[in-house]
């Protein structure tokens, strides 16, 4: 077998495996364009009889006799919360990571470990105490309250990735730049930051996906359109006696697509970032 045929064969095999893996997810996407009666039935209807955009129209409040879901608000909240918390987490994590990489100070190793371990606390154990404290502070059901929490849960991982990265950038570069007359800040910004860019990008995408999809905490800390995020909005499709599964699938598509596009765009950085960040140091 020539290398070429072998390559093509590998490609096909991989593609088929990927397809199988994606099937459950694709089922959701397909269901978004079908009716509840057609998806959940026995015997199953394998070939979609009629594809429809009604589920999407219903979400946006178009169509006869439908109560729309305030999806625009949810989307805005999700976007603001995820982007802001990712940005802040990367900023804080980066400065922290820089400190761990460049300086020695007493208790460094222990501090590092404890920062990591803070991430292990299950959301469910935090949600109620957080709720009580947040409501005393008056930041329940605000974007700010959720941003604060997401920032905190994303900081440890960001520190870890960026720490490895900064360690890999030779210390001399910064010193040389300072000798050339740069301030320490300029030296960092012009020399070290660009080299650590992929690490920061991959930390960013992980932080973004975590925030974008988080449910357990958001469901406690948000209540109204002021702060409810898309995953929490999914529960709008469940009522005491019914679940509008097709509607939920349509909403799922609205959640998944932006995340997918973003992931595709930062692909290159993602792989590079993970490569050097975590291990080499």
């Amino acid at each position, binding site marked *: 077998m020539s290398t070429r045929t072998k390559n093509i064969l590998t490609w096909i095999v991989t593609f088929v495996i990927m397809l199988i893996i994606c099937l459950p997810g694709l089922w959701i996407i397909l269901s978004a364009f079908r009716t509840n009666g057609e998806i959940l039935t026995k015997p199953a209807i394998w070939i979609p009889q009629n594809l429809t955009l009604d589920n999407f129209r219903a979400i946006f409040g178009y169509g006869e006799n439908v109560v729309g879901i305030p999806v625009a608000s949810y989307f805005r909240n999700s976007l603001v919360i995820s982007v802001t918390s990712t940005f802040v987490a990367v900023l804080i994590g980066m400065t922290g990571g820089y400190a761990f990489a460049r300086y020695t100070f007493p208790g460094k190793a222990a501090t590092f470990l404890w920062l990591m371990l803070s991430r292990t606390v299950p959301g469910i154990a935090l949600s109620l105490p957080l709720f009580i404290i947040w409501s005393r502070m008056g930041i329940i059901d605000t974007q700010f309250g959720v941003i604060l929490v997401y920032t905190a849960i994303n900081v440890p991982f960001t520190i870890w990735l960026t720490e490895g990265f900064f360690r890999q950038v030779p210390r001399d570069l910064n010193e040389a730049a300072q000798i050339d007359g740069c301030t320490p800040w300029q030296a960092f910004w012009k020399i070290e930051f660009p080299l650590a860019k992929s690490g920061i990008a991959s930390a960013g995408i992980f932080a973004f996906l975590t925030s974008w999809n988080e449910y357990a905490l958001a469901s406690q800390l948000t209540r109204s359109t002021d702060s409810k995020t898309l995953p929490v909005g999914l529960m709008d499709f469940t009522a005491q*006696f*019914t679940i509008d599964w097709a509607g939920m699938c349509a909403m799922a598509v609205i959640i998944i697509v932006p995340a997918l596009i973003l992931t595709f765009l930062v692909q290159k950085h993602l792989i590079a970032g993970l490569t050097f960040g975590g291990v080499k140091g």
Partner: protein
Amino acid sequence: MAKFLKSTALGMAAFAIAGSAAAQDYGNFDGYTLRVKLIGGAQYEPLYTLIPQWEEATGATVDILSRKSHFELDREMKQDIASGNIDYCVFSNHTNFAPQYDTMTEPLDGLIAADVIADFSPLVISHATVGDALFSLPRHSDVSNMFYVKSLYEDADNKAKFKAAYGYDLAPPDTWAQASDQAKFFSNPPDHYGTHFAGKDEGITGRFYEMLIAEGGKLLNDDMSPAFNSEAGVRALNFFVDLYQSGAVPAGTTNYVWDDLGLGFAAGAVAWDLDWAGWAAYFNGSDSKIGGDVGVALAPMGSSGKRTGWSGSHSFSVTKDCDNKEAAASFLTFLTSHDSQMHEARLGLLPTRSQVWTDVIAEFEAADNDFMVEVFSVWGESMANHAFTPPLIAEWGEISNALWPRLQAAVLGDMTAEEALKKASDEVTEVMEDAGHL
């Protein structure tokens, strides 16, 4: 279901507004904003389309802070109590859970005029009363009765075979023993089953509880210690165990709750279904595979001669911290008024005012809707004579959580009914100790 209710609701809304009677004086609260938290979902929302009428009549504005499902609202309410953050006046309540919210609830006895309360069904008002205080004003009630597929029961072949096998005529069941026979008779897995039941959460607790009562048992003793670990309890639990072990119900029934059950019956998957009134129109409608083929009957009797009738009412309450209790009371009166209840009753929800029962049946008769007339007659009988609530204590939810995993264990055959009830009883004892009852 959802779509059906919505479309009917909007059609009816126009009708209701046209016929709206401003006879009742709701007072004047010009410029006041009433903050409320309401239960959401397809079957509850149609009522809220009437709110502008109250706003117009009183000059007040209603600000709906939350509109979510029962479970989410319950969680939110508990959080509000925990954080002491109660800055609203009215909230959707439920008679069976009202005792949980007692620290935030203002009793209604002085707030709602006695003659208004007198128009409500006395049994339902008693369900809404905890101790001596009226905790909430019932909006609509719920109780389950029998739905069955008529053609299966009328089929001559089925009749003959059933008679041969069980020695009595095939007819909609009047006792749970008959219902059990019929479930086994009609079962033909995996395509068709005799019946199914709510198999988890409060669903199975409630079903067990009503069976316990129908078997002559009781849940708690007068001193609040558990009493369900009894012969009646074992009989009640074994009813479900037997159905499950004999394959008369789908194996997955232990994961089913209301939506699975309703959709399953509408899909024609089972022969009979003990279910809530809210489904009636959907079951017999065009979206259902058994549309036009649905019969209804009173919930059967247990061995004690008592019928099952686990019931409760959705209701509204006023908070203790409310800054304008008169406005809140006026709002409650409006939402549960004759016109409002007619609005909900037309959709198949069970009214709490005695007069509305009569009027809505008359309306269905006038419209030649025989099926709904029958539904309301059966459910009216059930609500008037057979309905009962769980013990009205704050710990009902905790008792339920102690019970249902054990009930499931018995149903699945992990332990015997006796063992399951013994374990559950020990746990409930602990719950009641923690709550300071024992």
